[in-house]
């Protein structure tokens, strides 16, 4: 009788440990992914990094937060930025009114022979 109860208790404990382990693993994975996303986002907006590093980072940015969308627009409008960075920022942005306004703004700024 005691043996049976012990087996049941051991099984329950084992299941609990396993599920906690899996849950903790998932939390760790999510935290790691968030960290990677943050690093990639910071890298892209870091003017001290090389253009290549910044362009490579954009693939790790995932779907942007609202604040990130605002920064992408700012960078796309920033004439002091590298043109590849400006283009990458624009391509990363969703197609909303801010996007189209920025595109029109850039087009208006172009010398006529480049339009």
């Amino acid at each position, binding site marked *: 009788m005691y043996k049976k109860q012990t087996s049941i208790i051991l099984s329950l404990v084992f299941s609990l440990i396993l599920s906690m382990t899996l849950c903790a693993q998932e939390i760790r994975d999510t935290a790691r992914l968030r960290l990677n996303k943050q690093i990639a986002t910071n890298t892209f907006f870091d003017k001290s990094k090389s253009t290549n590093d910044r*362009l490579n980072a*954009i693939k790790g940015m995932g*779907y942007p937060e609202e604040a990130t969308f605002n920064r992408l627009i700012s960078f796309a409008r920033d004439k002091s930025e590298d043109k590849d960075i400006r283009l990458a920022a624009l391509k*990363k942005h*969703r*197609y909303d009114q801010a996007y189209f306004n920025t595109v029109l703004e850039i087009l208006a700024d172009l010398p006529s022979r480049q339009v």
Partner: protein
Amino acid sequence: MAGNSLNKYSGVQFFRDSKSTGISSMIPFMYLFFLILLLSQCKCNKDILFSGWVVDQRGQAIADAVVRINNDDVRTSKDGKFKLAVNAKEEYFISVKHAEHADLYRNSRTALKDQVYILPDASVKVVDPAATVTLVDERPVIDGIIRAGATFTLPPNALVDENGNAPSGTIRGAIATLDLSRGEGPQEWGITDGSGRDGFLVSYGAVFIEFSSMDGSKVYQLKSGMSGQLTLPVTPSMESFAPATPSTPFWYYDKKDGKWHEAGSSSYDAVSGSYKGTVNHLSTINTDIAKFENAACLAITLDPSITPGHQLRIRYHSGGTPFGQVPTFTMNDVLNAAWRLPANTNVLLELLNAGGEVLSNLVVEDPAGTPLVNTVVNTGAALPSGSNLWPPTPFTTCKQITLKLGAPQVEIRINEQAPALAIDNPTDDYLTWAPTYAMARLASPGPGDVNIVLTNDNPNIGGNVRFAPHASPWPNNTTATATSLSLTLPASGAWVPFMVAGELATPSIDDKDAIIEVHENSAAGAVMGRKALMVRVRKNANTLTLGEKNRLLFAFQKFRNKVGGMNYILAQEIHRLASQAGDEAHHQPAFLTWHRFFLLQIERELQKIDPSVALHYWDWDAAAPNFFAEDFIGAAGSGAFTAEPDFSLTNPLLGWDTDLPFSGGELRRNTADHTLEPGSLGEAFMEPLDDPVDPSLVNFPDYGETGEFGLVSSFSSHVERSSHDVAHGWPCAGGHMVTPTRSAADPLFYFLHCQIDREWAYWQQVHNRLGVVSAGVLTFPNPQHYENAGSWNSPSNTPDPNYRQKGSYLEDGLWPWDGTTGGAGVEQRPPNIGTGVGSPGDRPNSLPTIPATAFPASVVPNLWPSVATIPLNRHCIDYLGRFNPINGLGFCYSGVPY
């Protein structure tokens, strides 16, 4: 005979006396008048009573069908039933006629009682007989295999009525390719040669063609010397035999003598799998080989275990002479016969109950009482040449067999509540996660009640179902969850109701691969019956099996090639127009609802072509390399910024013609690599549905607004602008998909919008916004009814032409199903509503007119709408029918539970 003599004599007397005058001269006339009246009322000879039930292929009653037996006729009542007493004759020629269906003919020597007559649907259209007329059968499913229907072309002015007069104005043309394997078409196959010798036909295929006046009162025939061109597909069971028969006559059935007569000639076309040729007489037409030798017959005796009234079906099995027709008849007596069968040929016998389902416990015995393996019988020796091939009762010259039933069997119906339909509707055996009504009974009444247990088949292959005891009314928000169910079936054969639903983890992968097993007494008991059905679910397109992919692509191809009625081009046009003037379907609150209705209508059209298909979704939160592949939606084309996608040579989408004046109708898509995970490209991509790291659509708790004024923080706004809009241009726009005026030309459109609808369904599930009102909150933001509220719900509460479009309110009817057009401001609706119907000839210079028809009624009972209805936004919110089980929409998504 004495009466006749007296009558004749009196007539002579009358004419003799008519030379005199006065009242006395009228007496013989009055005597004659009353005698004639008396005789005309006399039914003393009309003592042969026929009765029956006329239904369509889905088991629905056909009212007002004309049943004619020899020279008497009657119309069916509202419930499709009729009774007709006729004079006793040696032979009875029965015809059943209805304007929307192919005629049905039967010959009999005895009265037929309580028969079920199933009329095949016909493709009917209005035609001008003064011009060339082409009829194309729009029933693409023949024999359960997707193939072309028959085509008939008639030269101008080729028709006359029975008096030789040409029709004036437009008339109706009807065509139906008959599925011989299901017993469609006449059941009598007799012919007579010039010397009166009796023979029979071996059929390769059949079609019904008829031209009639608009009111149906006149039937037109080909003028003498005129003929039409017929392309008649070979019935699938004969496809392997047709190449050996390169030419064969066409024959037409004459209901006056119940026999077939030659009506032209045809040649086999291996490419189309059809016989093509000319026809000089209209009716039910066959392409057949005539036989005057080697005919046999079967004399069939019923054991007491089988009551008369069961149907017997006879199929070609092996050896001897192959034939395409499947004689199917109700055995009206203990002794029955089947005649005009090829001799020395193995045939398969199937016993059907009143619902048209095959009883698996049939036993066929030879005269020695020996059971025949698998109910296959050899037809035996030929009758003497020149003898009557329809032998007289008691059929002593025929091969003798006896039919009996083994252990009692159980019959199950899905999506039905008592009283049952006359036949089991084969198109309603489809489930989602939502519960639906079902019922079971003993197929043959037995000596006592029987306890049964319903389970899934074991081992399971394909879909699984869950059960629940019946309750009326069915409780809200509840589905069937039990893995088995015990029922007691009464000995009387009465139906016992229960509930059934698809099992979330186990949808079907093939048509009717979910098997309910009926066990006697316990789940381990003997199997007393099986019911095959399908758990039909919208799935991730990237994970489909080859069969699932191909069935859907073929259905799209057939829908694209369909002529007239709702077809792909008309659907494409509806979306194009919807996105123009008065666009309630985009950047308005009805974006999700309008597209849910639109997808549902298209899905149901595809299911008319193949009931086993569902729309599936492009899940862009992960890479979809199996979806963007040459054997599915197409791989990226090469070369320019946009190009035709690459399709494999066997893909039905190969050469897809958009019928739009854009690159010659060729399908165009951008040439970027679509097989990658969208988020991995470093470019704009669709906002995820539910991601642990990224901002996600599911994080917006409010349905909220989606207006013309840009993105706002609500689910509907983000799902449209951040998900849908981006997807149409992903990854860098170009091609048909990028603009709503032509996006629906690309089949990819339907997978994209299915994903959008799935995102809504998922959001509904997570936020418990499943009913029109959930937890006291409306799930749709605008409760007012546009037409009635007088309130525009704009910030100033006054009409604002830039604000919400008509159709944006919960109780609003949606275009085009409400039939409106024109108007201005927020009341503006797209143009081009009318009574016209699109056809290829209309394009591209004259695009099809959108027919002013409401959303069509569901062919499956217990689903919205039961009758054609103008859809309101509220109708599609509770898509699973959680709060009204008979008003679900009949679809669900893998991964989005009940």
